[in-house]
């Protein structure tokens, strides 16, 4: 087995709002191996982006621990954290707001190099490194002095990737890196991310709301619903044999490019449970077609059902018992 | 929010005045007063106490409407200021009404005919309006209507005719600001989808403007009018000076010249309190006009 690179334990992140505590992330555990891609899937507002930011300590967790290469990083001070930034980076969703409009392409890519003194103030060296990174992500040399607003979304996203790669990180949180892009460009960026992974041995936490995006690039997929993981399994296993009713509904929503295939769409009904001061019970129960009394009273735990397949559902648990 | 603001305002103004060079006792008794007499008065007035004690005493008395006595007339300051207030209120209200009466209709017309000749002329005039110091405008009006034409009185509060020039003087700048604000707000609203929808439905243009656009466009204008009231009160100081208008502003300017600190202090606080109350009313009105905003004051 490959060695573990990241482990999160009981991560909780609550935000205080005028109406009460918003449980954005409510007890999430998972582990990632070096070189793998974990797809983290869920609808908007389910807390998936919050997890990414908590791992990078861009947000402070309310509770829980994060281990990076077996080192607990949830207590690091500012200085140690800055050092750690070299190993962990993030690619953002919106290629328009994630780049400072007042800086040129080269300035954006060079900034991490300058902050971390990676290139020792020798200008030609800095320039060479910026050009190397641009080449790595497929940006033409002539764009070196361009400004972000002069470029299209795909090129802007490449700048963001180059910035993240500048520090030669081991682990990257990709927060919906393609969902703001045109479909034709999405494929290009996904391919680039895959190539970079092979070349540089990167580990990705790939956050998305789109299961079809994550299907091809993930080794494992975790499905999240209102702050909790409901199912986690290797990618093929999940697509072949999804167990949680929510995952099944998500899968049924993926369009299939064939006129012959007639599938049953699972339409979810009911109100989404409020994430503000939620009552105990399965968060999905209110929309679940199979919900039982128990689902409204107790929290189901994420448990392994074999084949590295984990699921948090009483239905599955009861089936196994019978 | 009103009470902390008033306490804050009195604190700021009181401390500014407190650190004014010059001994109040000396000012009252005159430069050549004997030493013991000055010291006795200082003791009487509590001028030897620490700042914070003096301030708290001032605040306590102020709450009872006692702002001390004028150094020059020895009359209670509050009565002085308050007796002058109706004149200032009359002038400011006249100026504001004039500004609203001119600014809103012209702003609306200008917006509905964007880029027309009328619109251009309005915009140039409005720009001139905001660029003119009102005391100079006042002098020019006096020059034209009092000196050259002899139509209107040049000063004092002697009936309606004497109100006309000061009100125009004070209201012009605000009228210009309201015109510009109404126009831009109206233009913004007209571009909204729901206006296009109304037109597409075949609603008459007049009705589109009156029924759909106007109320939404006026919401930001109301806030501006509220803020302008402060400007009016401030501007009144200069306008009252130009027209010898017997209001709080002129009282204040006279007091400045005579180093009559209690009067200056009370005038500034008084006007600030009036301004705060107006803003509070505007906030309430705002919530009433815009159902999306719930009033914080209930």
């Amino acid at each position: 087995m490959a060695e573990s690179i990241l482990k999160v334990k009981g991560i909780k992140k609550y935000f205080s709002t005028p109406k009460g505590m918003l449980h954005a992330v409510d007890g999430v555990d998972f582990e990632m191996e070096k070189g793998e891609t974990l797809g983290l899937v869920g609808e908007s507002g389910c807390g998936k982006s919050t997890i990414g930011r908590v791992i990078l300590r861009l947000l402070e967790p309310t509770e829980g621990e994060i281990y990076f290469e077996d080192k607990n990083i949830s207590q690091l001070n500012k200085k140690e954290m800055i050092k750690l930034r070299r190993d962990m980076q993030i690619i953002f969703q919106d290629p328009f707001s994630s780049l400072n409009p007042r800086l040129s392409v080269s300035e954006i890519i060079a900034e991490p190099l300058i902050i971390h003194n990676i290139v020792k103030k020798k200008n030609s060296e800095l320039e060479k490194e910026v050009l190397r990174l641009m080449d790595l992500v497929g940006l033409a040399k002539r764009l070196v002095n361009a400004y972000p607003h002069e470029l299209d979304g795909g090129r802007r996203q490449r700048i963001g990737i180059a910035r993240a790669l500048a520090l030669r990180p081991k682990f990257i949180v990709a927060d919906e890196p393609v969902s703001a892009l045109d479909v034709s460009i999405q494929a290009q960026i996904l391919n680039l991310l895959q190539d970079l992974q092979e070349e540089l041995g990167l580990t990705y936490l790939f956050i998305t709301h789109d299961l079809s995006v994550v299907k091809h690039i993930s080794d494992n997929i975790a499905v999240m619903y209102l702050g909790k993981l409901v199912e986690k399994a290797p990618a093929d296993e999940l697509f072949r044999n999804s167990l949680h009713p929510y995952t099944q509904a998500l899968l049924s929503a993926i369009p299939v490019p064939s006129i012959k295939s007639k599938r049953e769409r699972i339409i979810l009904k009911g109100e989404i449970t409020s994430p503000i001061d939620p009552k105990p019970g399965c968060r999905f129960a209110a929309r679940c077609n199979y919900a039982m009394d128990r689902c409204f009273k107790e929290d189901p735990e994420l448990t392994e059902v074999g084949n590295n397949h984990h699921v948090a559902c009483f239905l599955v648990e009861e089936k196994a018992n019978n | 929010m009103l009470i902390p603001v008033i306490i804050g305002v009195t604190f700021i103004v009181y401390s500014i005045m407190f650190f004014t060079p010059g001994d109040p006792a000396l000012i009252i008794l005159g430069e050549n007063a004997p030493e013991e007499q000055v010291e006795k008065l200082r003791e009487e007035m509590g001028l030897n106490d620490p700042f914070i004690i003096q301030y708290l005493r001032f605040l306590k008395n102020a709450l009872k409407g006692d702002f001390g006595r004028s150094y020059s007339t020895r009359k209670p300051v509050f009565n002085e200021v308050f007796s002058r207030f109706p004149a200032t209120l009359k002038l400011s209200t006249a100026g504001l009404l004039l500004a609203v009466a001119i600014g809103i209709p012209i702003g609306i017309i200008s917006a509905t005919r964007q880029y027309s000749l009328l619109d251009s002329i309005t915009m140039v005039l409005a720009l001139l309006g905001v660029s003119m110091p009102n005391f100079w405008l006042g002098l020019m009006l006096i020059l034209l209507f009092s000196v050259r034409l002899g139509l209107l009185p040049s000063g004092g509060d002697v009936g309606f005719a004497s109100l006309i020039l000061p009100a125009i003087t004070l209201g012009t700048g605000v009228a210009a600001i309201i015109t510009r604000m109404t126009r831009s707000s109206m233009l913004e609203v007209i571009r909204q989808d729901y206006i296009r929808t109304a037109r597409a439905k075949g609603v008459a243009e007049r009705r589109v403007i009156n029924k759909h656009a106007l109320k939404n466009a006026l919401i930001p204008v109301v806030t501006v009018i509220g803020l302008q009231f402060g400007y009016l009160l401030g501007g009144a100081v200069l306008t009252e000076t130009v027209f010898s208008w017997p209001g709080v502003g002129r009282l204040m300017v006279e007091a400045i010249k005579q180093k009559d600190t209690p009067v200056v202090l009370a005038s500034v606080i008084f006007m600030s309190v009036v301004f705060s109350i107006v803003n509070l009313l505007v906030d309430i009105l705002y919530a009433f006009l815009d159902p999306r905003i719930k009033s914080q004051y209930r």
Partner: protein
Amino acid sequence: MSSSVTTEKDTNLKSQAGKKRSQWGEVWRRLKKNHMAMIGLIIMIILILLAVFANQIADYEEVAIKQNTANRLQGPSRENWLGTDNFGRDIFARIIHGGRISLMVGVVAVGIAVLIGGTLGAIAGFYGGRVDNLIMRAMDIFLAIPSILLAIAIVTALGANLFNLMLAIGISSIPGYARIVRASVLTVKDQEFIEAARAIGASDFRIITKHIIPNALAPVIVQGTLGVATAILSTAGLSFIGLGVPKPRPEWGSMLSDGRTYLWEASHITTFPGLAIVITILALNLLGDGLRDALDPRLKQ
């Protein structure tokens, strides 16, 4: 340190390829297309040049200050373009020397207000929470005092001179800038590039100076330009009621005030200084409005 590295690198990379088109360059191009704004800019340049070279155009002591009662209250003529005042002094000379004071007070007062108000607003916006609350509540209290009244109170307390005038007008406009900068910082702060900067390990100082301030600057520039106009008006207003620079130093507001007495016999004493104020304020307003349009992101493309 780090900034010098960036600039050196810039020049280095510039030789590489592609022309550098900064956003400020684009703002300037948009501004150039706006005729009204350019008229404002040209008038301002002329006024600044007149103020800078005032002594070369008309000697301060000889022409603007020295009294010549034999020549008093003269109308405009070839010798005295704008006539003379009640002491026989040349009004044109007094206006350009007065312009020095107006412009200086305007710029310095706005400078004070932007520096203090901007810093307070930036801190409030960046750190939020209790700090924000404290600063902004204090600003609300300041805003409750009409700014000209606050300025009057401060000058009355400190005494009327040039420095106190600048200080008073500057202090009384602090809250406005604090609000604008705070609002501007709040919008910028929520953008992802701030988070990106944090993710690459940038310090708070670097984030504020390199990422937030340059992006939050536009409204401050507009407000600052319009603020100079307001400050000049306030200066004239304070001088008009006798709280300006001490006489015989020429100042537009006090010239107006002096002219009042002679409105019947020699109205030009009042007219011309007033026109000087109007032209200056008009130019600044044109320029400020033009800058607002040029900097408005909604009008881009």
